[in-house]
C-alpha cells in the first residue's frame, strides 16, 4: 500500500529533500485541483510556499492552479520551469501534457505524454494523459489499457476515471462506463461533463430515476471552466422529450441552441420537438438551420435532416419541397452498422 501511495504521488527523493513534511499538504492542494477548486488549492499552496519556498512541487502546483484559472501563459511558463527543475518527474510532463490538451495543442501534448511515460510508466498521471491521447488518436484499446492501470494506481484521478468511462461508453459497455463516471463524479462533484455522461450511460442501462438526478446535479455545477459541458442541456432536453416532459424539454433545448449554435444537433433536436408540438413554422426554421450546418462528426447525418425537412414541409403543405427531401432521403445510403450484430 505504501508503495502504491508513493507511486501514485510520483514520489522521488528530490522532493522529499526540498518539500519535507509538506507532501500531505501538497496532496491536499492537488485534491482541491481535482475537485475544480483552484481557489481552495491556492490558499493551501500559499501556506506551503511561505513555509517551504524551496519545495519544487509548489511550482508544479502553481502551474496547475494557473492553468485552472485560465492563465495559460503563466501556466505554460511554470510547467516549463518545473520540468527543467525536476526533469526526472513524470508528473511534470504529464500535467504539462494535460494542460496542452486543454490548449488544443495536441501534437505537443502527444510528445509531452510520451516523455512522461518514458520517465515513469507506472505514474498514474502519466498513464492517464497518455491513455487519453492514445484514445484521441483512435488507439482506444491501447488507451483503455493505460487508463485502466491509471485508475488502479490512483482511483482518485477523476480525469482518468472520466476518460476510461468515455471509452467504455463508446464501446457500448454502459454498465462499465457507469462505474467510472460514478467515480469521476465522486472525486469531482463539479465535473458537469461526468454527470452528463453518467446520465447518458444510466439511461442505456435503464436506471431512469438516477438519470434525472444526474442531469440535475450536472446542471447545478455546469459553470464555465475546464469541465463545463455545453451539451448538458441538449442531452437533458432529449431525455425530457422521451419522458413526455415537452415543456421542460423545450427550455433546455432552447438553451442548448443558445449555447452551441454552431452544432447541427442542437437545431435538429429542437426542430423535432417543435414538429411534435405542432409548431411547424418554428420546426421549419430550426430544421433549415440544421440543414445549413455541416456535421463533420456525423452526430446528425444528412439523412436525418432530409427526413425531418420532408416531414416539416409535408405538414406545412409545401409539397414540392417535401417531395424533394423525400427523394433525397430515398437516395441517401443508410448508415452501416458494425461488422456483426
Amino acid at each position: 500500500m505504501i508503495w502504491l501511495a508513493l507511486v501514485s504521488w510520483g514520489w522521488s527523493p528530490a522532493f522529499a529533500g526540498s518539500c519535507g513534511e509538506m507532501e500531505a499538504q501538497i496532496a491536499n492542494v492537488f485534491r482541491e485541483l481535482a475537485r475544480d477548486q483552484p481557489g481552495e488549492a491556492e490558499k493551501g499552496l500559499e501556506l506551503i510556499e511561505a513555509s517551504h519556498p524551496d519545495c519544487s512541487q509548489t511550482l508544479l502546483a502553481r502551474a496547475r492552479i494557473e492553468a485552472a484559472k485560465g492563465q495559460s501563459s503563466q501556466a505554460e511558463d511554470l510547467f516549463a520551469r518545473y520540468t527543467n527543475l525536476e526533469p526526472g518527474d513524470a508528473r511534470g510532463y504529464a500535467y504539462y501534457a494535460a494542460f496542452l490538451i486543454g490548449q488544443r495543442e495536441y501534437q505537443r501534448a502527444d510528445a509531452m505524454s510520451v516523455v512522461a511515460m518514458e520517465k515513469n510508466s507506472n505514474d498514474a498521471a502519466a498513464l492517464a494523459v497518455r491513455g487519453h491521447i492514445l484514445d484521441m488518436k483512435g488507439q482506444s484499446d491501447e488507451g483503455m489499457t493505460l487508463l485502466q492501470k491509471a485508475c488502479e494506481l490512483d482511483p482518485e484521478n477523476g480525469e482518468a476515471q472520466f476518460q476510461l468511462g468515455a471509452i467504455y461508453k463508446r464501446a457500448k459497455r454502459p454498465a462499465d462506463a457507469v462505474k467510472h463516471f460514478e467515480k469521476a463524479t465522486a472525486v469531482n462533484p463539479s465535473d458537469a461533463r461526468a454527470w452528463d455522461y453518467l446520465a447518458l450511460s444510466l439511461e442505456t442501462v435503464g436506471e431512469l430515476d438516477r438519470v434525472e438526478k444526474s442531469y440535475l446535479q450536472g446542471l447545478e455545477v455546469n459553470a464555465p471552466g475546464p469541465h463545463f459541458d455545453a451539451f448538458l442541456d441538449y442531452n437533458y432536453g432529449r431525455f425530457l422529450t422521451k419522458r413526455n416532459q415537452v415543456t421542460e424539454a423545450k427550455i433546455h433545448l432552447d438553451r442548448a441552441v443558445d449555447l452551441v449554435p454552431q452544432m447541427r444537433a442542437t437545431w435538429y433536436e429542437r426542430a423535432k420537438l417543435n414538429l411534435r408540438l405542432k409548431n411547424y413554422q418554428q420546426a421549419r426554421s430550426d430544421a433549415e438551420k440544421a440543414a445549413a450546418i455541416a456535421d463533420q462528426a456525423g452526430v446528425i447525418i444528412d439523412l436525418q435532416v432530409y427526413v425531418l425537412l420532408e416531414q416539416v414541409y409535408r405538414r406545412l403543405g409545401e409539397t414540392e419541397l417535401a417531395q424533394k427531401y423525400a427523394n433525397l432521403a430515398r437516395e441517401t445510403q443508410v448508415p452501416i452498422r458494425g461488422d456483426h450484430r
Partner: protein
Amino acid sequence: MKSALHWLFAVILTVNLAVGQSIRFENQTKRSGVTFVLDNGTTDDKPIIDSVLGGVALLDYDNDGYLDIFFTNGARIPGLAKDSARFSNRLYRNNHDGTFTDVTDRAGVRGEGYSMGAAAADFDNDGWTDIYVTGVNRNILYRNNHDATFTDVTERADVSGVSGGKKLWSVSAAWIDYDNDGRLDLFVVNYLDWSFENSRVCGPPGKRLSCPPSLYQGQPSILYHNNGDGTFTDVSSAVGISAHIGKGMGVAIADYNDDGWTDIFVANDNERNFLFKNRGGRAFDEVGVETSVAYTEDGVPVSSMGVDFRDWANDGKPGLFVTALGGETFPLFRNEGNGFFSMETYKAGIGFTSFKMSGWGAGIYDFDNDGYKDLFSSNSHVSENADLDPQQQYRQSNAVFQNLRNGNFRDVSEQSGPDMQVRTAHRGCAFGDLNNDGKIDVVVSAIGSPGELLYNRSPGNNHWILIQAVGTKSNRDGIGTRIKLTSESGLTQYNHVTTAGSYASSSDKRVHFGLGSDSRIKEIELRWPTGKLQVLRNVKADQVLKVTEE
C-alpha cells in the same frame, strides 16, 4: 383524514383493477404433446440464414372450430435439405382438450428446404385453409384436400418465389385481396441476396456472430395475383412492387387510409420500411417516407423484423407496431388519419423498456379483454454468440405491454407469470384463441428450445367476441374486411380480418374483440372488401360469431 385515506386507497385499487390489473400467460407445452424444437442446423461459421427462421401459423386446417399449429423449421447446412426428421416442419392438430397430435406426416407437410415462415388462408375459396411456406431455397403452397391432407401445388400455382430465374430468400408472406376481386393474392417478402458462394463470416473463429444485412444486397418483394383457377401470375413489376429493393423480414396489411383498398407494410432490416399504398387495386405507390413510417423519429432506419398493423388507439385508424434490435427501441406508429403517421414509441411509454429488447414476433391484441389492444413481442438477440459480449444477451424473455387506455402502455412482462420470464432464443410467434375461451393465446417458436404454447390466463371475467367472416362475393376468409364494433357501454373498437403480421407467422383469421364488462354489443359493422356494409345489432358477447357476407 382517515376516510380520505380510505377513499384514496379505494381509488387506487379501482384504477388498478380497471386498467387490467394483470395479463398472464402460462406455457402449456409440456402437457400439450407438442414436442417441436426449432432446429436451425447451425454450423461454426453461423451463416446468416441460421438466425432468422422460425415462423409459426395458427389455422384451423380441419374445420373443427379449433386452431391447429404449424411450425416451420430449418434444414441441414450446407445442404439446405430436410434430410432428418429433426428438420421437419410440423403440423399439430388440436384435440380440444389442451393436447395436440402431430399429424405432419399424415397431412404431408414435412416440407422441403430451409423454411422460414408461413401464411395460412383459403386461397381457392373452397372453405378449407391452405398454407404457404416461405424459405431460403424452397417456397411451398399446400392446398388443403379437405381430408386432413395437403397437396403441394407450388409448381402448378407458379408461386415458387423464383424471380428473374432466381429463387429469392423469402421470409414472410401475406394473403391479401389487393384488387378486391374476391380471390386472395399472395405477397411474398424477400430478404437478402445470400448464397453459400457469397456467404460471409463475422467475428473470430469459434466466436462467429451473425453478419449484418449490410454485407448483402437486398431483394424485392413479389406479388402474385390469383387467377382464380389455381394459378397465380407474378404482377410485381406491373403493379410497382419489384422496383423497391428492400431487406424484408415482416409484413402486415391494413387499409391505412380507409379508401377500401388494402395496403401493405414491409418491415425492412436496417433499411427504410416500405408502405405500399394501394392505388385502387391497379398498382401500388411506395409511400413509406411520405407517411413517416420509413424511418424512426430520429430519421434513421432500424433493424425492423416483425410488425403488426392494427388500430391500437381505438380511433379507427390502423397503426403499426414494429420489433427491432436492442439499442433501437420498438417503433410504435400512430396513424394520424391525415396521411401521416407519428412515431410514439417514447410518448406511449415503450421506449425505455424496448430499448433493451431485441424483438421478432409482434402483435397488437387485447390480451386482457378490456377493449383496448395491448402489445406483445417475442424476444431474443440475433447472434447465438452474442453472450460473448457481456453487455448482450442472446436469450431473452418475451414482453407484453398493457394498454393503459390513454395512449400509453406499460411493460407488464414481469407480472405476466413465470413462463413469461423464461429467456430463450425466441423467434416468430402467432396469435389466436387456442381453446376458444375468448382470450388470445400466443404460440412462440424458439431456436433450440420447445415451441411455447402461451395460454392466456389473465384473470377477470371480461367479455369478448371472436368474429369469423365468411365471404361470399369477397374472398372466402373475408380477409380485408374492416370491422367496427360498438359495445353496450358505447366503447367503439376497430379491427380487420387478416392472418398476416408478426414475424414470418400467420395468426387466427377470426377477429377478436375484448368487451370489458359489456355483455352485449350494440352494433357490429362489417365493411367487406367488395365495399358492402353489413350491420349486426344487439349481439351477445362471449361467442365465436360466424358472419356470412350477405
